[in-house]
């Protein structure tokens, strides 16, 4: 039951983009078409989950026993950068169709602060390995949900007549704000 609460909290209550302000660059940058948004969302779910689990192991078995906690930031970002490269090579060789649809998003993910953010949150909350896995997948899904919904809204907004100064990013941000307001209603339902 606790795990269920964890999932709901990560997707809706503490949505990674709309309540925690993580991953905003890709959130605004790749939400112009829903096809692109789905690809980016899947790539984030995939990488965030792997990164969180691997960084959890790095922290537990490498940094903590050797009293190297202050190297956390360097170690995590290097692990994520290497992981992204590895996933890219792996997909290219083994699952070419998946590489075709996700490949272009993978380089963008190294600097996606949602991925590093999720890994660090898992450490700060002192999650177990299973909780880390569940939390990271759910957070990734929360990111994907927000991204896909915003992309669908922005696709329709393309047809609307808006002042030229509002077009593009400003309107995207304001739409994100309204979505965030809707998600705000979940606040306090789970911590």
């Amino acid at each position, binding site marked *: 039951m606790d795990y269920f609460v964890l999932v709901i909290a990560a997707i809706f209550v503490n949505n990674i983009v*709309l*309540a*925690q*302000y*993580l*991953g*905003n*660059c*890709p959130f*605004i*940058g*790749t939400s*112009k078409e829903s096809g692109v948004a789905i690809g980016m969302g899947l790539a984030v779910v995939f990488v965030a989950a792997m990164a969180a689990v691997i960084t959890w192991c790095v922290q537990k078995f490498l940094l903590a026993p050797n009293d190297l906690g*202050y*190297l*956390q*930031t*360097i170690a*995590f*970002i*290097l692990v994520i*950068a290497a992981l*992204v*490269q590895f996933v890219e090579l792996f997909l290219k060789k083994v699952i070419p169709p998946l590489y075709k649809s996700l490949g272009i998003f993978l*380089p*963008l993910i*190294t*600097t*996606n*602060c949602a991925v*590093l*953010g999720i890994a*660090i*949150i898992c450490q*700060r909350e002192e999650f177990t390995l299973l909780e880390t896995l569940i939390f990271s997948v759910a957070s990734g899904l929360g990111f994907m949900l927000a991204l896909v919904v915003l992309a669908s809204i922005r696709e329709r907004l393309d047809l609307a007549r808006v*002042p*030229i*100064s*509002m*077009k*593009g*990013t*400003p*309107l*995207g*941000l*304001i739409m*994100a*704000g*309204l979505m*965030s*307001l809707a998600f*705000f209603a979940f606040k306090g339902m789970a911590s």
Partner: protein
Amino acid sequence: MSSLWKEFSKGLWKDLPPFKLVLGLCPVLAVTKTAYNGFGMGMAVIFVLALSNLLVSLLRKVIPAKVRIACFIVVAASLVVCVELLMQAYAYPLYQQLGIFVPLIVVNCIILGRAEAFASKNPVLLSVADGLGMGIGFTISLTFLGSIRELLGTGQWFGMQVLSDWFEPVRFMVEAPGAFVCLGVLLAAMNAFTNWQRRTKGLEAVQGPVHDCKTCGMCATKPGA
């Protein structure tokens, strides 16, 4: 000397990081609940950005092109760790306020973007000027956004009560939705100002800077490619 000033001053208006380049949005939205937090975050970014530009520029002939992104990340991450330790020692309350966003400076597109787009191609002094200018522009933007949100959300400015009892604080502004809406409206105002300037020169109005990952030097290039 004039080129030094040019590189320094472009970060203050022409390429003002969060507004004109639309980079590094997460800290812009997350830490601007109060003006003080925005200012503190800006200071940390100035430190990292100026020093990472300095180091990357010094090492630009040594770093092999193929692994340059990884090298930039290591440089930025080392500096971020320095900032983390310095803040824990001398500004612990601020460190706690900024929370997870201090380590996340390392993935702020501005740091890697400037390393890739400027410092890796230019001499040391110019790169430091560029880093300082961009950092100061970033700090001004964050402090400005933080001031608006703090003033409307709590009636205070840098923790001092500015608006008295007649003002009913709008809590919306200090919560997540307010951050998005406030930044969106500011960006639109900025675009409207640019368009007004263009119209007075007889030019056609244009859409504002588009945010996609191509504006970020890091994302436009595949790591290791």
